[in-house]
């Protein structure tokens, strides 16, 4: 699933952009050092291939719904982790620019969720050990399926974490996770089957392609330091999430109950990760300001997802009036600019 701009806070967006940027720079350096000039046209073509293949739907038996190839694991198998990551990133970038898929800020999240986990976690840690360089059809299916599931589950978990820590969507962590993870489990299984089918076909007709792809890189001695670093990050993320759960779980549950029942007041101050994230957001966001009159009651201020007090009628109507007027003004500016364009440029 793609993240969307409107559901991310600037802090989360910037963090994921930095993470994706770092992995991109790392992958680019590794590819430059490999000096395999054949990779460059191959990456371009395989990116175009994945883009095109994604537009071809197939029927998923027993459900009647349509599926399509994700391509992350397939690219990792054919190109190796670094080139595959860049290829996936390029496909997502074009989709963001031309199809408004998610948006440009969310691109950082999407590249990480859909690129990092399949290429740098699932492929080296699950596919390669299971399938090896010359897999039998059985091991190919097993490796591709388990790796795809793992990659997609991690990606889905990341989406949930990114969404919840942004604080814009009201979906509680547990609900969202319960929604995303089972769906992506199913998607992962289908993806694995399809990936294995495609690789299996190529393997049958032109085995040297698959063999060359596997042989050209030594996955065994992956730079251990970096691998450990990425594992540490993953562990930290998980720990953070769990600790958040642990520290504010009663609050979280209680507050969800309050929401459902419609009561406004919140007992208990915002503590734990939540408040810390809020303060982080305060410091790093463009300018933190929720624009609602904050009553003297300070206990509301610390909780970014707390109930804002009921706004006075006057203020809200003023807001509506002002918004309508501003919109009209903006449209007028637009029309004026349009009218000012020289005739010759029209159309």
């Amino acid at each position: 699933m793609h993240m969307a701009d409107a559901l991310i806070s600037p802090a989360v967006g910037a963090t994921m952009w930095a993470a994706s940027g770092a992995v991109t720079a790392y992958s680019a350096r590794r590819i430059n050092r490999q000096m395999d000039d054949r990779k460059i046209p191959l990456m371009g073509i395989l990116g175009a291939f994945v883009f095109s293949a994604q537009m071809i739907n197939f029927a998923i038996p027993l459900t009647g719904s349509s599926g399509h190839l994700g391509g992350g694991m397939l690219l990792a198998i054919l190109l190796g982790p670094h080139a595959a990551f860049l290829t996936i990133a390029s496909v997502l970038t074009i989709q963001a620019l031309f199809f408004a898929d998610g948006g440009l800020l969310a691109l950082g999240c999407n590249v990480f969720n859909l690129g990092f986990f399949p290429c740098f976690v699932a492929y080296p840690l699950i596919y390669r050990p299971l399938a090896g360089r010359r897999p039998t059809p059985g091991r190919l299916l097993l490796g591709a399926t388990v790796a795809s599931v793992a990659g997609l589950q991690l990606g889905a978990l990341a989406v949930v974490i990114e969404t919840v820590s942004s604080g814009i969507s009201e979906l509680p962590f547990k609900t969202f996770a319960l929604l995303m993870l089972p769906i992506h489990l199913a998607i992962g299984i289908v993806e694995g089957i399809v990936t294995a089918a495609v690789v299996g076909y190529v393997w049958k007709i032109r085995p040297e392609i698959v063999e060359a792809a596997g042989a050209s890189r030594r996955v065994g001695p992956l730079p251990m330091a970096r691998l450990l670093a990425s594992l540490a990050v993953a562990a930290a993320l998980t720990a953070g999430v769990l600790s958040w759960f642990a520290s504010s779980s009663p609050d979280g549950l209680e507050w969800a109950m309050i929401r459902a029942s419609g009561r406004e007041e919140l007992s208990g101050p915002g503590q734990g990760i939540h408040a810390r994230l809020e303060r982080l957001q305060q410091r790093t966001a463009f300018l933190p300001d929720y624009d609602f009159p904050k009553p003297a009651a300070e206990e509301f201020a610390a909780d970014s997802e707390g109930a804002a007090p009921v706004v006075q009628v006057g203020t809200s109507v003023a807001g509506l009036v002002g918004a309508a007027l501003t919109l009209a003004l903006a449209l007028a500016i637009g029309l004026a600019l349009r009218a000012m364009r020289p005739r010759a440029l029209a159309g």
Partner: protein
Amino acid sequence: MSHIETALLDIRGLDALSVRDSPLRRIDPRAKTLTALAFIVAVVSFGKYEIAGLIPLVVYPIALMAVDGLPPRIVLSKVLLALPFVALIGAFNPVFDRAAMVRIGPLDISGGWISFASILLKSLLTLSAAVILIATTGFSAVCVALDRLRVPRVFVVQLLLLYRYLFVLAEEAARMLRAWSLRSAGRRRLPLGAFGPFAGQLLLRSMDRADRIHAAMLSRGFDGRMRTDRVLRFRAVDAVFVLAWVALFVAARLYNAPRALGEAVMRSLP
């Protein structure tokens, strides 16, 4: 027309739009790219219950479309297509956030609905910024901008090659799909079992093509490094472009003009 062909037309169409001339064309692509990103960050930095304060930012897409002569319906159709996915997640907000936030007469509007509306508005703004960027700048210009902004050269080249061969491969895929469909009683969707060989065939052809492209590159002296001497000059007008827009974004963020305006209007009423 199949899904692929429609998508191809979309991409071609958007990029073709960027070939027209307008004052916006002369602005450095870096300036346009950076401004678009600043716009998105500004929009997203508003609070989750904010609606009115966002409205002044509408000037950015409107002004760009107007100066460039970009038909708004093209931008809107793209954005509206992408909206349902965000709306799906955002639609949970009214479910979980039921506390009344605004009271107009007897009507209680919960915070959930307000934040949902805010999400939709933000999506409209940020997604249109992306589409407008491509329609006014063109894909290869954006790539040059990225290159000059220190994005790794390998990645920029990858974007350009992907874009270049997208059409070739998608058309090939469309032809293959049409041929298959004609032999399969007009079905448009492959059964799961047929997808492996289908995609496998396309993949093999693609890899052969990659080999030929590689040979063509080598034949003209390619040694692994893509060189470019596209010179981009950042001029005063480009700096003014960026600074002026960013100033507007900051001002809109700091000062809720619509509300002030509305309050002034309300006060002046008898």
